[in-house]
């Protein structure tokens, strides 16, 4: 059946800058915001924008993502007509290959899109945190009579050199596009959200596919091709919170943004709920001597110790006399009695041993490779930290570094 618009969500990226967090799962499956995973944001935006047909393009370690999305019922995307579809790369009789770039991923799935004969296609990526009405963007696209529309966010001029920058005229038409320009001419940063007229995109992708020098990427090949081809490309100005959570630092910051006062990103919005696969857990329990301030706590948690300015995911246990500050504790982690955790991300089902210190001051002679983490301490998934261990800030605790995986709590 014909659909007006189909969303294609690029969820194949490894997210190597998230280090051990993505060693067993793709970036969109990384937990965020107390009870969500990153992919919940674009999926919920789709549902709230009345887009009911979403293709999710997977490539890197899709297991966590596949089982997470399931039939899509948690996002109300188990539909008779449409719904959510996982689209991994495939082989055909002649060739078949991995997705060579973002545009190639869509190109290889053009038959999927064609089933719905849409007028428009919405391209999303699975590593951004934001709430956005794609319906408003589509209306803008139609009003402007554009062939391609790119959502842009005004960023501070001094940071513009880190983004893909759209230079536009007074009618929001894009004149040129520069990827990470040294001398930016504008502060309109591309958010990696595109609406295309499907027919035009198909043509463009087909030409791009035949070009052996192309990287088959939306930002570096497809968008420039549209602009250089003289087609109408417009920039849709977005106002509101948007964050790329592709690094440890930005993932931690984005989590802190929802507990700041006032929060930079409001999640408690009945008009724009973020849907997720909810764990089947009782409400959380706060003990007699516990203290919790400026924090998020969710179902299944048990807090007996002190938690300040932190985000606890489901089924986290903070034992008595343990203290957690400025940290993000992923589902199922246990902070044992007397342990102290400062400015850290603790992975799923990890155990921080009794009286150990995570994220302590650097001591004389400590050598820490903090190229990915900066001042944030990172404990991977399923890691057991021995009692009385001392992890200076910036440490990445992995299997080798910290005495074996834990399977038994």
């Amino acid at each position, binding site marked *: 059946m014909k659909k007006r618009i189909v969303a294609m969500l690029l969820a194949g990226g490894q997210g190597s800058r998230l280090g051990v967090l993505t060693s067993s799962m793709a970036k969109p499956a990384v937990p965020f915001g107390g*009870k969500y995973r990153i992919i919940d944001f674009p999926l919920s935006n789709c549902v709230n924008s009345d887009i009911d047909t979403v293709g999710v393009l997977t490539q890197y370690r899709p297991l966590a993502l596949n089982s997470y999305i399931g039939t899509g*019922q948690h996002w109300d995307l188990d539909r008779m007509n449409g719904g959510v579809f996982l689209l991994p790369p495939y082989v055909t009789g002649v060739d078949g290959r991995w997705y060579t770039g973002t545009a190639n991923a869509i190109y290889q799935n053009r038959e999927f899109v064609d089933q719905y004969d849409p007028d428009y296609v919405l391209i999303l990526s699975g590593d951004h945190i934001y709430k956005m009405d794609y319906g408003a963007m589509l209306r803008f696209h139609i009003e402007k009579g554009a062939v391609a529309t790119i959502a842009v966010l005004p960023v501070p001029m001094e940071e513009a050199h880190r983004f893909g920058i759209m230079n536009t005229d007074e009618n929001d038409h894009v004149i040129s596009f520069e990827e990470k320009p040294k001398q930016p001419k504008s502060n309109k940063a591309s958010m990696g959200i595109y609406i295309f007229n499907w027919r035009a995109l198909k043509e463009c992708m087909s030409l791009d596919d035949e070009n052996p020098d192309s990287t088959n990427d939306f930002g570096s090949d497809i968008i420039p091709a549209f602009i250089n081809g003289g087609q109408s490309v417009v920039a849709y100005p977005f106002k509101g919170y948007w964050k790329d959570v592709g690094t440890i630092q930005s993932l931690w910051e984005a989590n802190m943004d929802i507990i700041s006062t006032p929060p930079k990103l409001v999640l408690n919005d009945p008009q724009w709920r973020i849907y997720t696969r909810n764990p089947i857990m*009782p409400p959380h329990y*706060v003990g007699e001597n516990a*203290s919790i301030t400026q924090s*998020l*706590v969710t179902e299944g948690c048990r807090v007996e110790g002190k938690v300040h300015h932190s985000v606890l995911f489901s089924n986290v246990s903070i034992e008595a006399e343990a203290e957690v500050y400025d940290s993000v504790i992923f589902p199922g982690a246990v902070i044992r009695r007397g342990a102290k955790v400062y400015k850290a991300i603790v992975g799923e089902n990890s155990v921080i041993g009794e009286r150990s210190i995570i994220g302590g001051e650097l001591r004389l002679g400590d050598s820490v490779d903090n190229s990915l983490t900066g001042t944030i301490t990172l404990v991977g998934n399923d890691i057991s930290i021995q009692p009385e261990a001392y992890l200076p800030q910036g440490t990445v605790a992995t299997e080798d570094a910290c005495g074996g995986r834990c399977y038994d709590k």
Partner: protein
Amino acid sequence: MTSNAFGLIYTGETNPFLRDLALSRSVAAVPFGGRYRCIDFILSDLVNTGVTSVGLITQKNYHSLMDHLGAGKEWDLHRKREGLFMLPPFMTKENTGLYRGSVDAIRSCLGYVRRNPQQYVILSGSHTIFNMTFNDMIARHIETRANITMLYNEGEFAASEEQNLDLRLLMDSSERITEMELNPFSPRSAFRSCDVMIMDKLLLEYLVEEAYSHGDYDLTRDILLKKCQTLKIMGYRYDGYVARLDSVNDFFRHNLALLQPEVRNDLFNPAHPIYTKVKDEVSAKYGENAVVRNSMLADGCQIEGTVENSIVFRGVSVKKGAVVKNSILMQGVSIGENCMMDHVILDKGVVVREGRTLTGYDGFPIILKKGTTI
């Protein structure tokens, strides 16, 4: 595992002792434990047993129950084959649409009973809360060749002042029930029925038709009480935590009992999860000045004040300077700045404006009904 039994839950019980809690809803829909309703427990018990077909007989005030259960998706009972069957009252030439009692109710859904291919029926009420599976009980029912097997636990000997469906069982050494007493003035047994029984569905059909032909309409009073000698009725003992919502006091007591780890771990045994309707609320948010001790809180709460020894349901807000102690705040309750709440039960959506003080007593908590503003 597949079970050779289907479930039939009767939610027609009325209970004046629940006062305002069951004013606009059936007992089955009374909220419990921060994010659940009474019915979630028996329904989850059946699902965790492997039961795939559950009939739910509704009587009066079943709107909020229907709203809660929907198509049964959250209990995994939204199926192509079998699943959850809502059995509301309906009028036919021999049925007025209003049930006088459980016999009438079951009789009007005998079609559902007959259609089920399973041999056994697990018949249950809806005001008793516990977390168990019935597999072992079914096995025992078959092994002892009982006609009926009734679940019981050891409760208090004395009858409470607010006695409601207090069915006491007297048994011989083989656990065969020799006599039953309903709401006895001075009970002769500490063993109380947990409101769940297993029998062959053909026996249920027979008993219901027989009672109906005598003009009887209550399963317990008119059938069970009289048939102890002629039928082999066995008891099956349950030793876990059992919460009967017989009165406002019981409701209060059993909710707050969840603050004890033994009770919490028993009712929320991770091996047998309790399912409920999902609301997609955000995590609970604690403010800068929040002080929370010995309490259970659900998602969507915003806590700026003090909460102690309380059960706080989804989406509750407690403003700065407010103090809530020994209380139960249901979904969407809002407590204004500098309020003092002690021993209160605030039903869904109650709004308490700033500076108000409400104090109930142990044994007499204050209830504010759904939607009240003070």
